[in-house]
């Protein structure tokens, strides 16, 4: 895992002092919230319905136990004893006092963490495959590139006021576990025929009110030119995006208006120019960073067998474990989706349990998934039973990865000042409806995603089943969508028809799911059946 040197540390500390000064000026009344807003938003501090919300970056979703213990401490000391993991691999605290924010940033700096560029019109925290460094199917660990790009995109002068936010995602496998093509700038690391490493580039994706799936602008950008290519993309967008309507300023809109071909042409022209400036970082710096990501010292000769005699454990194993590249090891997914609970929420005590497990059983590493779950990336198969027992005792052993109750939901009207409707209770009601493990298992992979408004923080466009909260004559109302995906079979969900109230949308989901169960062919997931029969095939069942 990357470690800060004196330079990284000095930059983060400078930001803390900067923010301390700005906060003091605000608290002393020398600034209005209007003036303070762009400053605090550069630092992940939002004013919400009840309190300030602080978003902390978890670069490429990687944490160590010291960092997670610090987050537990922050939850206990400055919040209400819990935190909320987000769909961009960050963590949010929803009950923060403004006067505490600078101290929290200081505490974060002590464990090499920060809130830089976690909100506002900036290049946001870079996300990556949460199985990076462990996945059996990856070409290489994508995190050295994510870290290099994190540094290069921190306080980039030319892009100090981008038209809108800009989200980057890096993966290195065929399977897309990070919703790469729903980002403004998606990268897939590939090898060409000569065995050289480079990037497939996918610009122009994004959710929000006008969703677009990123298109491929290049099959192969050589690895040491990727920063130049990124600058070219940013520059074309920064210069030519609209500035008159905040809802039309994301890069996806410019790509759409210019057309993919013209956008690519402009990027390539700028790219050729920027290459001549020599701003890419050298191999030596890449090597320095990559050295921090050398695989941990995996033991060899470990047993592959897992003792499945405890039936509850066997159920959990079948759902929560993914193949690891090293023999004798497994990737463990820790569900943060208890039935009826709030997805992504985790208490300080649970954080400490997971931190202990990471330290003892997973080379001190853990990951945050965009599905708002946690991952212990490197667990010996022989230790799985012990890990499961401790997770179970902490209420963290739900076996529902990618199943109907593994729901992504944004904070919605319970916390968010932009919301039209509540998301969390809808997620809870749906999970309760399908709580029976046998039913969940029978339904198989089914991704439900819920947003409380059109901003789409809950990824409803990418849900096999999506739910969108809308405001209808002052009452909460929900639209149902079908057919989205954030994976390598990426697609955008479509609205089924008229909306529902809260109880109605839960019933409608159930009708859609039952219909799937009736008409599915062997081996078909919900999304496969939907793609085969289309919306018409489901409408009748939903609206009767």
């Amino acid at each position, binding site marked *: 895992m990357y470690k800060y*040197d004196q*330079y*990284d540390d*000095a*930059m983060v500390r*400078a930001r803390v002092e*900067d923010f301390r*000064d*700005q906060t003091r000026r605000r608290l002393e009344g020398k600034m209005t919230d209007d003036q303070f807003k*762009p*400053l605090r938003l550069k630092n992940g501090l939002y004013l919400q319905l009840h309190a300030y919300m602080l978003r902390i970056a978890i670069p490429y979703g990687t944490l160590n136990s010291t960092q997670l213990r610090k987050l537990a401490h922050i939850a206990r000391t400055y919040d209400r004893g819990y935190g909320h993991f987000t769909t961009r691999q960050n963590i949010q605290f929803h009950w923060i006092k403004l006067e505490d924010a600078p101290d929290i940033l200081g505490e974060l700096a002590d464990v090499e963490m920060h809130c830089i560029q976690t909100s506002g*019109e900036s290049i946001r925290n870079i996300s990556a495959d949460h199985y990076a460094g462990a996945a059996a199917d990856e070409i290489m660990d994508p995190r050295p590139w994510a870290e290099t790009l994190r*540094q*290069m995109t*921190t*306080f*980039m*002068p*030319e*892009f*100090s*006021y*981008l*038209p809108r936010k800009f989200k980057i995602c890096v993966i290195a496998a065929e399977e897309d576990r990070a919703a790469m093509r729903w980002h403004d700038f998606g990268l897939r690391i590939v090898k060409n025929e000569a065995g050289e490493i480079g990037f497939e580039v996918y610009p122009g994706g994004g959710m929000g009110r006008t969703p677009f799936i990123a298109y491929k602008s290049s099959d192969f950008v050589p690895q040491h030119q990727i920063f130049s290519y990124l600058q070219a993309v940013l*520059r074309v967008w*920064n*210069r030519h995006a609209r*500035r008159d309507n905040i809802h039309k300023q994301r890069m996806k809109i410019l790509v759409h208006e210019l057309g993919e071909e013209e956008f690519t042409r402009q990027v390539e022209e700028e790219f050729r*120019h920027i290459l001549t*400036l*020599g*701003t890419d*970082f*050298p191999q*030596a*710096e890449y090597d*320095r960073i990559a050295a921090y990501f050398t695989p941990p010292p995996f033991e060899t000769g470990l047993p592959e067998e897992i003792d499945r005699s405890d039936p509850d454990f066997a159920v959990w194993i079948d759902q929560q474990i993914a193949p690891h590249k090293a023999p004798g090891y497994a990737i463990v997914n820790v569900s943060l989706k208890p039935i009826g609970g709030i997805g992504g929420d985790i208490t300080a005590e649970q954080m400490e349990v997971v931190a202990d497990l990471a330290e003892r059983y997973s080379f001190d590493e853990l990951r945050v998934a965009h599905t708002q779950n946690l991952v212990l990336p490197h667990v010996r198969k022989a230790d799985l039973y012990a890990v499961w027992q401790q997770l179970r005792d902490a209420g963290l052993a739900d076996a529902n990865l990618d199943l109907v109750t593994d729901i992504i939901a944004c904070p919605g009207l319970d916390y968010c000042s932009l919301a039209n409707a509540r998301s969390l209770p809808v997620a809870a009601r749906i999970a309760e409806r399908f709580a029976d493990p046998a039913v969940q298992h029978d339904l198989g992979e089914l991704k439900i995603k819920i947003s409380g408004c059109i901003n789409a923080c809950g990824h409803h466009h990418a849900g096999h089943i999506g739910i969108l909260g809308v405001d209808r004559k002052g009452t909460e109302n929900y639209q149902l969508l079908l057919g989205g995906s954030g994976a390598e079979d990426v697609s955008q969900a479509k609205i089924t028809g008229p909306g529902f109230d809260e109880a109605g949308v839960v019933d409608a989901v159930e009708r859609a799911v039952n219909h799937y169960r009736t008409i599915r062919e062997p081996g078909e997931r919900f999304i496969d059946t939907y793609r085969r029969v289309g919306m018409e095939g489901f409408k009748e069942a939903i609206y009767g």
Partner: protein
Amino acid sequence: MADVLRFRDDAAADEPAVSLDAFLDQTNAVSVRIEAGDDVRRLAPVLDRLRLVEIDFPKFRDGRGFSSASILREMGYTGEIKATGDVLVDLIFFMRRCGFDSFAPNVPLDPADAEAALNRYPYVYQHAADAEVPIWQLRHPELANG
């Protein structure tokens, strides 16, 4: 012009700046005003007679001027680049990095605030239009020629 914060030793051009179209038409003009949507690359053929470029920020949320200044410096322009309009003191550090060397915002900058803002960050992570050495280069003194 007490309200200008200037980081140059040469005498300031005293001619009022004209629009980009006017500048390209008038062969004796030396000062040009760039609006947020203007393409500074159109100045490439006439750089040698240019002494002052004013780049306007109609609102601080409009960051196009950062690219305009960067591109001018990449083209080899060494004269003055002045930021006008809605300029946030908290961004002047980054403006300096893009090649701005004077500031004449609508609301004059408080000199103490400006001083603090300019000295906020001890290092930089990437190359820009200034002479700052990026962190990656400090980490690799063996690559000093680069």
